[in-house]
């Protein structure tokens, strides 16, 4: 009796090994590109741009990969939330036009944050409706899911045309966020720096939420084995709806950032990034948040460096990266256990 108690006290669970290798790829890639690019200042500019792009892609992709991991639902219409988020910011920019042109940097940041908050609220609500109307009837049927979310995307894209018109809309960055910061010889665009900071902030929050809270624990457990979580008495459906809404809201946030980055709005913009997002979540391992983060940074770095070194290969480079990584790890960088 005492012997049993002793063993339970002394033998603790083995610590989960962290797989650092894929994460190390990011700095390795960045350093390896330095001699190829040649000049240090250009390299800094490129790297900052890539990090900004990577953060935005991560924000847009994180919801998709979690939804897939948790409920085995692949939403091909995810791009719609990106487009909607971007267009919704127009509703804020209209009444707050004065803040955009104001020389006060705090008002400028305020208007950006207002855009983000409104876009996240609207896309979150939209995500709720989308889950209810479009996705719920086709749980567990992959073929139908692909078709139906594709159909939902077509309809939503056309609705954007109906509401906001079919022609591209130019978008101006708030006054204080234009231009670049020059450190030494390296120029970094202010807006990109802000995007990096915002992206890191969200990643950090998400990391805390997933690893330090009960909800996060349930989500991670659900990704590993949804049935078991349900058997323990938690409503996995409700959890899933929550994650879907959060994922849509994050896509909306990414959409706002992406729209200001491109400075034009088109209804098809979400679909265009969708391709990149798919590549990222395949590289990262379907369902893995960490993998999604690393994948997004890798894709962005490769895209930016090749865009500078060999412009014609820019999009082909992401595909090449995907092929190489899948040859190395066929299930993605951080494979999720059950898949």
């Amino acid at each position, binding site marked *: 009796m005492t012997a049993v108690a002793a063993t339970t006290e002394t033998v603790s669970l083995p610590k989960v090994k962290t797989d650092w290798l894929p994460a190390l790829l990011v700095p390795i890639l960045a350093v390896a590109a330095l001699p190829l690019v040649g000049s240090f200042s250009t390299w800094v500019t490129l790297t900052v741009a890539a990090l900004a792009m990577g953060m935005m892609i991560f924000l847009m992709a994180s919801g998709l990969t979690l939804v897939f991991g948790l409920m085995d639902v692949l939403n091909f219409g995810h791009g719609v939330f990106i487009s909607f988020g971007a267009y919704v910011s127009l509703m804020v920019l209209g009444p707050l036009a004065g803040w955009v042109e104001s020389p006060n940097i705090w008002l400028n940041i305020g208007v950006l944050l207002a855009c983000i908050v409104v876009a996240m609220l609207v896309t979150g609500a939209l995500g709720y409706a989308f889950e209810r109307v479009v996705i719920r009837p086709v749980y567990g049927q992959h073929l139908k899911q692909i078709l139906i979310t594709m159909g939902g995307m*077509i*309809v939503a894209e056309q609705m954007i045309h109906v509401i906001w018109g079919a022609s591209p809309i130019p978008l101006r960055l708030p006054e204080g966020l234009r231009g670049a910061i020059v450190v030494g010889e390296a120029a970094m665009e202010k807006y990109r720096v802000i995007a990096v900071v915002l992206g890191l902030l969200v990643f950090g929050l998400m990391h805390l939420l997933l690893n330090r809270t009960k909800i996060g624990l349930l989500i991670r457990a659900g990704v590993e084995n949804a049935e078991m979580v349900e058997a323990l008495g938690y409503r996995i459906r409700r959890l899933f709806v929550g994650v879907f809404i959060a994922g849509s809201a994050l896509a909306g946030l990414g959409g706002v950032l992406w729209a200001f980055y491109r400075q034009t709005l088109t209804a098809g913009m979400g679909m265009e990034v969708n391709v990149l997002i798919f*590549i990222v979540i395949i590289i990262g391992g379907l369902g893995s948040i960490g993998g999604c983060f690393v994948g997004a940074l890798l894709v962005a770095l490769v895209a930016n460096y090749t865009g500078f070194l060999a412009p014609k290969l820019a999009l082909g480079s992401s595909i090449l990266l995907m092929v190489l990584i899948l040859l190395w790890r066929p*299930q993605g960088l951080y494979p999720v256990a059950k898949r």
Partner: protein
Amino acid sequence: MLPNNPIHSILSGDYPRSKALSVALVIVLVSLAFAPFLFPGSQPLNVAAKICVFVILVASYDLLLGYTGIVSFAHTMFYGIGGYGVAIAMYNFNAGWGALGLGVLAALVLAMLLALLIGLFSLRVRAIFFAMITLAVASAFAILASQLNEITGGEDGRSYRIPEMLRPAFRLFDEPVLGVMINGRILTYYLIFFAALILFLLALRVVNSPFGRVLQAIRENDFRAEALGYRVVVYRSIANCLSAGMATLAGVLMALWLRYTGPDTTLSFAIMIDILLMVVIGGMGTLYGAVLGATIFILAQNYLQVLMGQFSGMLEAAGIPLLPGLFHADRWLLWLGILFVLSVYFFPVGIVGKLRQMKS
């Protein structure tokens, strides 16, 4: 019917199995076969040629989606390879039959190899993987095609001459037949029509062969098919290659008809969506669905827009807000998209399936 009668062997034993469907198919066949005589003018002939090409394109897609149960987004890529095969050959060499043959052959080889490569790479994992990877590869290919200016003509595409016999100036007879002058344009139409007919019957043959049955078994339960001793990856890859080859030939036919190939007419994602809509509305898992889906969709594309424009104009004149926007002529895809979503939910068997259910 006896298995050895000619209709049985032509249709490979796959009958429409519904009176209404048979009537509809015969109407489509007769209208297409005599299109130049029944509907004179260049616009109707254009629509008829487009229907022929898209029947093949959609049928080849159905081979993947409806019969094998895998979703590909790279179908327009193969369609585009066919188109560019003709375009590059005709543009760079003399516009003869030899060059045409060479272009078609090169396109077919390239398309099949690419399909095999993508299939081997991604089909072994999961069907959903395949969907994502084809989407990525297809968009990369579209960008590549619009950037390789020297070869493909970039965004502008390529206009080219086609063999002498198929040009509008060519006359087969000096006298008009049944009131219609048989020129090269009509000859091209009949080339497309018969090629489409033969390819369609071949596809029927494939899906009703033992091979086709295995594909359907894989669609229903791939694990079980594997357990019965069929290598699922191999069958899926072959289906993928066959479908790619057929799509390539559809692209060849379209290139001959348009005498122009560009990114927008062959590689754009909009065409991929059109194909999806046609397959689902017509009916997945039956090739007759491809015929009806393509016919209805292309007729709608060409004539529904005009009707919608008029309707929208009427609404606007009546002073009703918002609705004119919804019925604007450019918003026809909105309605087809809604129809698409509804048909996936409520009648996944499509028009053909509905017609067959009505009978029983």
